[in-house]
């Protein structure tokens, strides 16, 4: 994963500390996440077999990942047979190169885009701009982010941090065709976006999308959306280029019966999203290219604990229930993948060499709400804990842990340490520990040290 996301440098605790000072942001986020989590709970509660669907979703994804090489080859064959062209990209630079060359071969300098996490991850818009190609986002929230020269802060609703009056201001400032008397009514704002994009849809010759699912058996690609911008992009332009992560695969057509129930209910909290498009290869004379993207995914696959993150279907249910995300917001995570899933996906895709990426596994209280709502049962707390162990730790912390390990490893040494602590208890401060230990007591009281340890008390009473 390339470091194209410039949301915030620094590290998560610092970013979060700044973000929580923004009361408007906290208000917007709280309102939005609570609305959507209630909607999700209602439509998930309607299905008596939700847990069975979830178990099937998890098993299908695990099975696919175990045989990913075979299913990718099957997909490639099916897409090619149906008139599409398949490209393989090891990393972001290679994917961007392939897409830029395909666009340039058409002679076009403008493309329309369907909201896609994969193309954000690889920084495709920026790469195309360097080649003289302008990419226009067509999803309403992506449009708000793009016009506002801003960064997405949520997987499903990238402009979740913006309220209606902020959006109105962005439209008036950046959209030349926005009506002068534009109000901040969501319906009026949506109408302004409709008019702004309509002509562009009809004019554009090249579209770029991602995909929610790819079916190995049939070569079918599946895109779920709400607004119809997806249908516009997938249908009208002469050339369609889809950039899709290799983990988006499902083995069989039948598997959609599981995921078309899991995804909409987890994501937008609807029984079904307004529009789902499915196509196989070249349709209605369209030129179709599929770019299969690795960009760190095979590295994640190699990790026995972390590989479960590749089951993710990008529903964002974990963001909406996370107490940390709700307060810190998406930008603090410094990645296109924020929230709990981002905290386990980003450090695995990018590694933990930067301060920011090394801090992400700690951006959690480990409450486990994310695991409960995950439609493919990713045990996010388990992966967080595993990544915490792998993250770089300071020399003092390593020495402290080593010393603690030495003491705790021997009954005799532990007993001696406890007796020493009991004798020294008068000298241990109640509120703030000195030196570097103060960080620990910033948010905690020092536990009382008993006059006598339980093991000594037991020893004494047993003897008596």
């Amino acid at each position, binding site marked *: 994963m390339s470091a194209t996301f410039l949301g915030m440098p620094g590290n998560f605790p610092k970013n979060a500390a700044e973000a929580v000072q923004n009361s408007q942001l906290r208000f917007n986020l709280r309102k939005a996440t609570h609305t959507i989590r209630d909607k999700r709970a209602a439509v998930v509660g309607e299905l008596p077999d939700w847990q069975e669907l979830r178990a099937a979703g998890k098993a299908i994804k695990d099975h696919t990942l*175990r045989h990913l090489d075979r299913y990718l080859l099957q997909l490639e064959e099916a897409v090619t047979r149906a008139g599409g062209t398949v490209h393989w990209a090891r990393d972001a630079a290679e994917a961007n190169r392939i897409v830029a060359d395909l666009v340039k071969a058409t002679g076009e300098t403008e493309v329309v885009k369907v909201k896609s996490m994969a193309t954000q991850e690889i920084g495709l818009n920026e790469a195309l701009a360097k080649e003289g190609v302008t990419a226009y986002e067509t*999803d309403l929230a992506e449009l708000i982010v793009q016009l506002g020269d801003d960064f997405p802060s949520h997987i499903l609703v990238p402009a979740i941090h913006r309220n209606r009056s902020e959006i109105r201001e962005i439209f008036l400032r950046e959209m030349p065709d926005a009506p002068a008397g534009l109000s901040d009514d969501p319906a009026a704002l949506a109408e302004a976006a409709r008019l702004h994009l309509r002509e562009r849809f009809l004019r554009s010759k090249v579209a770029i999308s991602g995909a929610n699912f790819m079916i190995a058996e049939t070569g079918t690609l599946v895109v779920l959306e709400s*607004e119809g*911008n997806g249908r516009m992009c997938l249908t009208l332009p002469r050339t369609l280029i889809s950039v899709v992560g290799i983990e988006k695969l499902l083995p069989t057509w039948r598997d959609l019966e599981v995921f078309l*129930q899991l995804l909409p209910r987890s994501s937008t909290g*609807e029984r*079904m999203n307004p529009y789902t498009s499915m196509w196989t290869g070249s349709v209605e004379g369209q030129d179709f290219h599929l770019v299969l993207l690795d960009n760190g995914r095979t590295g994640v696959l190699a990790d*026995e604990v972390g590989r479960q993150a590749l089951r993710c279907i990008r529903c964002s249910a974990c963001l909406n229930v996370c107490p940390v995300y709700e307060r810190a917001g998406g930008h603090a995570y410094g990645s296109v993948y924020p929230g709990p899933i981002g905290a386990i996906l980003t450090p695995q895709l990018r590694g933990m060499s930067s301060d920011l990426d090394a801090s992400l596994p700690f951006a959690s209280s480990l409450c486990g709400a994310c695991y409960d709502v995950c439609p493919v049962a990713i045990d996010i707390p388990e992966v967080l804990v595993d990544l915490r162990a792998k993250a770089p730790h300071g020399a003092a912390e390593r020495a402290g842990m080593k010393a603690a390990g030495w003491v705790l490893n021997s009954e005799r040494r532990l007993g001696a340490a406890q007796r020493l602590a009991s004798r020294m208890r008068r000298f241990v401060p109640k509120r703030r520990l000195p030196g570097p230990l103060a960080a620990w007591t910033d948010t905690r009281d020092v536990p009382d040290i008993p006059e006598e340890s339980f093991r000594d008390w037991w020893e004494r009473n047993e003897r008596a």
Partner: protein
Amino acid sequence: MSAREEILARIRTAVAGARDDGPADAGIPRGYRAVRQVDDLVELFAERVRDYRAIVHVVPEDDLTAALARVAGGRRLVLPEGLPGGWAPGPGHADPYTADGVLTACAVAVAETGTIVLDHGPGQGTRAETLVPDHHVCVVRAAQIVGGVPEAVARLDPSRPLTWISGPSATSDIELNRVEGVHGPRTLEVVIAT
């Protein structure tokens, strides 16, 4: 090494130590409902489509022609090739970009989710014809309604382009307020023939 070979090699190395669950998907637990037991498919489907703020009419098959004429109400509608005889409420309007709406059949409908699916076969138009006009009138025959998603997936042919439609175009991108009508048809009108 080509990118293709390198990615495949990386995958094989990555999963080398993992337990092999066999080539087929026999081990996948499919304890979820394959069939929805629904007393009245038409009633449930109509209720769920209305939930999306679409317009729903339930008419006897014999009255379909008259009902479609009422629904059309003089609008200039795109009438796709292969539309069943007697449905056309007037002369068709060929250009979807200037039409007031489009009238189509469908391939299958899902009661539990209030979804219609087009496979763009006879009477269902091209993908653009059902997308560009602002008003979509879709006729669903009672026998085309299934209970749940698994039954619909089983009935569909993946080699065809498919469009699943659940209510009119909508967005919730502004403060998660649902607004109907963005880029797709702003009005969806479903006529159920029983």
